């Protein structure tokens, strides 16, 4: 289940990713990186000996100051899971990793749209779920309808 944290950091250093913090948390083994080095790190992890071939899930969360994106990797040969976290500023760019993991295509579009980021390097960076003019709904600053609003529709 849990990969060896030292092996992960070893692979990342070999790939030239500096200041990556690998720690074991409630979630599992989490690796925090800078957004700029995510692509390089993912490529190294996919092709490295830990064999993280599957990007199981991709999500973003509004932490109140910035957007934290999480890449959930899984290695089926070694039966291990790893979470990669990076932060993006509110008006920042989300670099697509679709040419490393094809499964990121739609989750990235969804995250960029619902959290108001601009998507870079994506083959089809259109809106996926909502129509034009809908606010980035998953941000904490965008409220849901109030009780009065829904009662007196």
């Amino acid at each position, binding site marked *: 289940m849990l990969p060896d944290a030292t092996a992960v950091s070893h692979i990342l250093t070999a790939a030239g990713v500096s200041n990556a913090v690998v720690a074991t948390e*409630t*979630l599992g083994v989490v690796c925090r990186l800078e957004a700029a080095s995510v692509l390089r790190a993912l490529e190294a992890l996919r092709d490295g000996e830990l064999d993280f071939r599957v990007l199981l899930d991709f999500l973003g969360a509004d932490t109140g100051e910035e957007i934290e994106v999480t890449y959930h990797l899984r290695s089926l040969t070694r039966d291990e899971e790893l979470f990669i976290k990076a932060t993006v500023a509110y008006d920042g760019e989300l670099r697509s990793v679709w040419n490393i993991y*094809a499964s990121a295509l*739609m989750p990235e579009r969804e995250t960029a749209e619902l959290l108001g980021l601009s998507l870079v390097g994506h083959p089809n960076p259109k809106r*996926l779920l909502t129509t034009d003019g809908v606010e980035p709904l998953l941000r904490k600053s965008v409220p849901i309808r109030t009780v009065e609003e829904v009662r007196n529709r």
Partner: protein
Amino acid sequence: MSDPRDDVISVGALAAEGTHSAGDPPAGIRRVPSGVDGLTTEHLIINMGPQHPSTHGVLRLLIEVDGEEVLAAETSLGYLHRGIEKLAESRKYHQLGTLMDRGDYVSGMHGEQAAALATEKLLEVTVPDKARYIRTLVAELTRLASHLVWYGTFGLDTGAMGQFLYAVRDREVLLDILEEISGQRMMFNYIRPGGVVADLPVGIEKKILDFLTDFDVHLEEHHALLGGNEIFQMRVKGIGTISREMALAFALSGANLRATGVGFDVRRDRPYDAYPDLDFDVPVGSTGDAWDRYMVRMEEMRQSVRMVRQCIEGMPEGDFTAKVPKVIRPAEGEVYASVESSRGETGVHLVSDGSPEPYRYHYRGPSLFACQVLEEILPGHLLADVVMMIGSLDIMLGEADR
């Protein structure tokens, strides 16, 4: 974009590598036109959906066709985007089940189970044995109900009607059982953090066993009626082949992944609830085409029947729920919990900040990933096969759009 004709899949090659033994398509039937010499045809864009009887919900496909051959396809989602993730941030932990029911609405129990497991991980409570068994029992009954919907509608896509009626007939009995256990036919709201809402009603075991006795016969009939039909075999064999690499790259899960030969099953490899105590097999396919996906799902139904029997036999005595506070305030933290739903790995990524409501709630719907792979596998097939491929992937738009 390169010429899509370059990687046209030809049936002959597939039949040679595949391990299908019976009923290969008769010689002379070509699935993919090799192009008409000397005639230039204009490409046509066909809009399929969002309201279409065989898109299994509100999937919208833009298909570029040359004659009858699909050249490219684009998937458009969002026609059922209801904000489950956003609304969960204003729900209390025991209310999350009501949202998860409506995510993957055909197998509601699995969604509830995923939410409950994630909350329990945060709370670090131990679920009593009886609750674990009840959950497994209802989850497997729901899987049967969900696969029956898939079976019925998959046949409808080929143009068959009779098996749909038989599937609905069996599903009615299942829904009656589930209604007696939980109170509603589809939106159960039965599994909660810590256990289940209520004990099994008296005498339900006999009803379930009676149903299973009938269903053993009915299931073989279902299989003979659809899978044994040559027309159906001709329409699904060699259609929508997904290679193992493609399945991993697109993070497919569930039966779609197992049909390609990767035997990953959350029930076996990340065991939860009573699955470690049960004895079951994980069926895998070989070629990853629509026929393999059909066979894997049929076998899963047989395994579910086995598991339900084992759950009833091994049902322990005890409490049906652990002691969980009325207002759940888990410690700060972040967890991921997943279950094997009817469609694949349904995961819940839960971030708590110590308040009674989740801080961030992410719902991994396996159908979203199955929708992505459509764009990849549709080109090169005939237009009539598009509905077969959508049907064989068993897409549920409720969890793709969320």
